[in-house]
């Protein structure tokens, strides 16, 4: 990797050479520039990125309370019409296109209208999380606690989202054509979100001395299944909880897979969002999307209370 110039020693500017060469004392023009403004440039970049990422979220939320948007900015604050229509609570023409109408459920004296699509989607996602718990906690324990043949491959398959959602959707089309949409969606959600569960639970297990915990419990006379269920799992409840929350939120919003697989029956939430974005007036779409923002904000707050720092678990989807 050494350049001939660096060997000859007659080129003064080795700063532009390869990584192996010793840097010159003179920082050069770029070095002086970066020393002067580097910190400010990077701080500004961070601020611009945060505004780029969060600005439209805030704007969408605020605009969802506006009456109309015909000029530069929306106007006619504050109205709840968009929200009522998006939630399917108002009996206008557009409400039938909202969250699929609402069922009223009686809860001790009061009846609460419950938007159908929203509750169905939450239930589907919950089903996916339930499968994930059964599948993710044991596999996370196996690859963290034991050394065995093929362990690293199994670990890779468990934590890396190997199949993109849209590919899995196409694969499901001919394989399970007779499954009700709800069942196919639940299986798909659990498979696609399993890595998030495994990673979260694994990080809990890694902070515990598993071998010692297990051996103490065993030496006190507990059988191995009993040790696993009553000692190991409760100790990892923080990771399990945060994994479940992340999986649930991501499953509720999983679009790529749902779009391909969904055929009939009540619509998943992500398809409702898509229909709002592509067909409905801007402000009602804003209200529909704001529903999901609210869910994520609540979930992030929950995650903070379990000690996680937001949706930072896992990098890929």
């Amino acid at each position, binding site marked *: 990797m050494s350049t001939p110039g660096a060997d000859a020693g007659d080129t003064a500017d080795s700063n532009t050479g390869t*990584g192996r060469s010793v*840097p010159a004392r003179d920082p050069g023009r770029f*070095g*002086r520039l970066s*020393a002067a403004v*580097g*910190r400010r440039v*990077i*701080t500004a970049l*961070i601020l611009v*990125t*945060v505004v*780029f*990422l969060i600005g*439209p979220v805030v704007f*969408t939320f605020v605009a969802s309370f506006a009456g109309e948007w015909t000029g530069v900015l929306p106007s006619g604050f504050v109205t709840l019409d968009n929200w009522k229509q998006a939630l399917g609570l108002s009996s206008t023409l557009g409400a039938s296109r909202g969250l699929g109408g609402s069922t009223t459920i009686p809860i001790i004296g009061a009846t609460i209208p419950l938007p159908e699509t929203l509750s169905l989607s939450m239930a589907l996602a919950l089903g996916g999380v339930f499968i994930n718990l*059964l*599948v993710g906690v*044991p*596999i996370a324990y*196996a690859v963290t606690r*034991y050394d*065995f043949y093929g362990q690293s491959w199994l670990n*890779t*398959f468990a*934590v*890396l989202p*190997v*199949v*993109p959602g*849209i590919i*899995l959707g*196409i*694969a499901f*089309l*001919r394989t399970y054509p007779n499954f009700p949409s709800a069942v196919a969606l639940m*299986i*798909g959600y*659990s498979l696609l979100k*399993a890595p998030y569960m495994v990673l979260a639970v694994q990080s809990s297990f890694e902070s515990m001395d598993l071998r010692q915990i297990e051996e103490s419990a065993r030496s006190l006379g507990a059988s191995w299944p009993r040790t696993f269920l009553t000692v190991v799992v409760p100790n990892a409840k923080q990771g399990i909880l945060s994994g479940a929350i992340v999986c649930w939120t991501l499953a509720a*919003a999983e679009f*790529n897979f749902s*779009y*391909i697989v969904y055929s009939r029956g009540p619509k998943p939430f*992500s398809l409702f*969002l*898509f229909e709002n*974005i592509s067909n409905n007036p801007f402000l009602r*779409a804003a209200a529909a*999307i704001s529903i999901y923002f609210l869910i994520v904000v609540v*979930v*992030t707050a929950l995650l903070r209370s379990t000690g996680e*720092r*937001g*949706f*930072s678990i*896992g*990098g*890929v*989807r």
Partner: protein
Amino acid sequence: MATRDESAPLGRFRTGLASLLAPTTERDRSRRRIAALAAPFLVLATFGAFVPLATMVRMSTSASNFAIEGLTLAAYERLFTSILAAVPGAGIDANPVYGEVIWNSLWFGAATTLASVVIGVAIAHGLEKYDLPREGLLVTLISFPISLPGIVAAFMMIVWFGKTGLLTNVLTVFTGAGPNAVALTGQPSGTLLAITGLFFGYLYSMIPRATFLLRGSYAEVNTDAEEAARSLGATPWQTFRYVTLPQIRPGIVGALILTFRTALAIFGTVLVLKALSVVTFRFSQEISVGFDLQMASALATVFFVFTVLFTFLSLRLTSAEVAG
């Protein structure tokens, strides 16, 4: 019936199974535990992934569109002729549409990956090295879009760059051009403005992921070496170039690989913004227009094999961390 050659592995399998069911040694018992712990995941992976993927591969070679029957490679033949036809100078006369969508996916994915990882390095550097006020809040805000599906990312771009979008309004005032000339979304597919809008849509999803993959490697940087370099008179840039960068290089390579994967799999954003036909967008066209399931399956098979090989080979060859 069984010859000696067949009975040896069969016998070993039988004793292996027997030791799983009725373990005698402690080693057998721990193997049984591992099997029991891995079983639910393997069941889900088999019925949720392996069987459907195998069916998909089989479907791509089926002669009928409505059932799996017969064996033909017609879909692959069409696919590969189309890819070759898109190569300039190959001299093959066919519709190059599949070659074009694959090329679009690759160059657009590479461009957005490079941009997001560069920005991700800068953000991770700033978050890790500078004492920024409200750092926890910044981290939460930057991670927020990880939870948003691609269709919502596309909507966010409409809020910024649509014909009545916030930035479009600003640009309209400053340049005097009409909103139709400066809006980045809602333009005809394939135009430079529309593709720029989609580029930002991809960045919206990928910058948070790249940043968080890189924060992991920044957490492991040896700060003593950096301080030594600074106290010996190196400028911040030299410190970064010669001390920090070599340490986070594996992290950067891992982030490039995993972010590129994400870029290839983005679908919702393209479906809403319709600026460039990429492979994932082509799937929905194959299925919604004409329900050409063989072609969709063949394209999906090639796409899947490519992503898996790319991810595993590059992660193995560069020994980058798998998980973020």
